[in-house]
């Protein structure tokens, strides 16, 4: 899914921890060849940094001897890559056809209301990022919502409310 409303600028974060760059370099150096490995490297960078700020994209470009535009071109093409900081938890509503006809739009709307953000945004407290996704392949359990790696199936709006609240409580508990 090429992103809708891609923000034209990449975020610049100057003070990224150097040890993260070291980890990324170690990964790149461990590859037998960087030929065709750009997507793998971007995935790795996103895993290490959590998102892909401008400095990271340029670092990858220099390391691979390609242009920054090429790296940016790939990052902006694919939905799984993000150039914005993400919340602690990512909530993804499945918008595949099976989930759509079984009530996913109501779940998505409820989440937007409850969290006060739109798809693609992160709550102010940094707890949740809201996303849509296209089918996790558990269509038999539609409608499906995924929070981080956990899949919740056959969801009703009321159940969703409870689940979100349990995450909020947990976060509040940790803070205390």
């Amino acid at each position: 899914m090429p992103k809708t409303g891609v923000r034209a600028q990449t975020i610049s974060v100057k003070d990224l921890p150097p040890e993260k760059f070291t980890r990324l370099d170690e990964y790149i150096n461990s590859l037998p060849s960087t030929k065709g490995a750009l997507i793998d490297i971007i995935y790795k960078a996103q895993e290490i940094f959590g998102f892909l700020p401008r400095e990271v994209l340029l670092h990858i470009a220099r390391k691979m001897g390609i242009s920054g535009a090429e790296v940016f071109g790939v990052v902006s093409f694919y939905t799984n890559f993000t150039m914005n900081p993400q919340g602690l938890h990512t909530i993804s509503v499945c918008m595949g056809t099976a989930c759509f006809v079984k009530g996913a739009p109501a779940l998505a709307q409820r989440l937007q209301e409850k969290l006060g953000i739109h798809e693609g945004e992160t709550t102010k407290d940094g707890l949740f990022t809201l996303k849509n996704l296209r089918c996790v392949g558990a269509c038999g359990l539609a409608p499906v919502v995924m929070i981080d790696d956990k899949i919740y199936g056959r969801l009703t709006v009321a159940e969703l409310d409870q689940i979100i609240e349990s995450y909020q409580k947990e976060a509040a508990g940790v803070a205390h």
Partner: protein
Amino acid sequence: MRINTLEQLKEQRIQAEKTIQNRIFGQPSARPEVLIGMATCGIAAGAGEVKEAIEEELERLKLTDIKIVPVGCIGYCHSEPLVQVNLPGQPPVLYGNVDAAKAREIVKGHLVGQQLLADGITEPNFERVNLEEAKAFEPTGQRKQLRIALRNCGVIDPTSIDEYIAGHGYEALGKALTQMTPETVIDTVKRSGLRGRGGGGFPTGLKWEFTRKSRPGVQKYIFCNADEGDPGAFMDRSVLEGDPHSVLEAMAIGGYAIGASTGVIYIRAEYPLAIKRLKTAIAQAKEYGLLGGNLFGTGFNFDIELRYGAGAFVCGEETSLINSAEGKRGEPSNKPPFPSESGFWGQPTCVNNVETYANVAPIILNGGDWFAAIGTERSKGTKVFALAGKVNNVGLVEVPMGTTLREIIYEIGGGIKDGHRFKAVQTGGPSGGVITEDYLDTPIDYESLKAIDSIMGSGGMIVMDETDCMVNIAKYYLEFTQDESCGKCTPCRVGTKRLHEILERITEGKAEMADIDKLTKLARTIKDAALCGLGQTAPNPVLSTLKFFENEYLQHIQEHYCATGSCKALVKYSIDKERCIGCTACAKACPVKCISGEVKKVHAIDQTKCIQCGACFTTCKFGAVIKP
């Protein structure tokens, strides 16, 4: 351990059969076993907790000789989590909707007490292909399904290469390498009539032949398309999670046939479990010498690597897939040259779908004619469908080509959910169309679905009832394709956006009659002018719903009326005076407090304030709130 000859492999099979007993052929097993459906869908439904409960209970009762086998998708997704009990001398029994409490009950009552609990199913509604003797398949009342591609799904432990070998795994590869030339392999696949299951239905044998003959002597590649971008389809995931070795084996056979020593599986990152299963399977096959160098002592080398998708539907298209596998933007390239001429790194490349591969080993073992005897004149074998939506038995279904939609939806699928009326079934995902009641008796194959303006596609089958608005469905698909358009060519990039805008106007009651004309003209233009399959098929859901449900479009435009209430802007909620008992529940639920009325008196909605949130509709237990 390394397997160097076909004889060694058969020896290994005999050993392995002892450990899994007769489980594969659905016969009574010799040792008590508990199978748990642990594919993504099963785990999401809670199979993990069920497994823990069973383990605890077995430990508590000191039943250490009972084996727990996590298997892939059993197919009855509507009743997950699923647990199957196999006891010696008895037919297997399947239990659905199992939770931790019920799991304990099954252990105590069935495994120990030897009593079949009330809701166990002993007769599955499908038959599995028999690889011992190539028997013909006779559908019966209950059993309309034949499992070829899904032969091992839900029966074997996908993390055990021995269980795969016990079901004649890798024997087709051994046979191909030691007893057949690449040409006879291709000939067998051609004779089988196998056509690509990824959507297009191109004859697989022919594609292999093209790639083999193209630029002899150069390095070639064989790809597995495991992108499964179709929203609402999950058969490829099920095969990869439930039977990964069948894909590896078929890729090696295909590699031998076309002359490739490297296979690449392009898999979507959204399928982490499938990726894990594939990695395990590849490592096991290497350890056994069934992948790697000098397979079966024939000097044939074959290795497989994985590439991950990064969330772009268009990457399922074969030229984009290859670009993406090279680490680039996944934009389609012009054809020709076809991948069989110039694909991965410019070399001849053959791309096949997961399910296509899953059919290959049985064809090699049982022969092309056996496969060609199943199905219809021009569509051979079986097809796996991911049956979902408003049908009772959602799940994985594998039927011989030529089975009718009615059989799938009503007999296998158990009819429409919650007593609703069937309205349409959508096949082929964003590239397909809807099929109405009038065509339910159409025998499904590539040609007849095309003849009624839909397509087989990859096998997603979404059932819709009278509460689904067809204009809204068309808008949904256009939003999808517009979102997924790679933007390389204008007809698709701009055209799908305009189509979506018109549909949006219609669902908001802001369209004019002239818009219908614009819609059709634009749709035809995009079909003709777009560069790749995404754009060429994007208008299909519009054209198809327009053809079969024109009255709904007209209602939206002329009467500003959406009969299903799906189009929010057109819904009006009101309260039925006859039914309202004045319970006040709706008034409490209304976020803008626009419902008035006293306790035990009829309530009323102030239309000027209502925001159409629908809270009153879902709250009222007496069916008194009505829409549209």
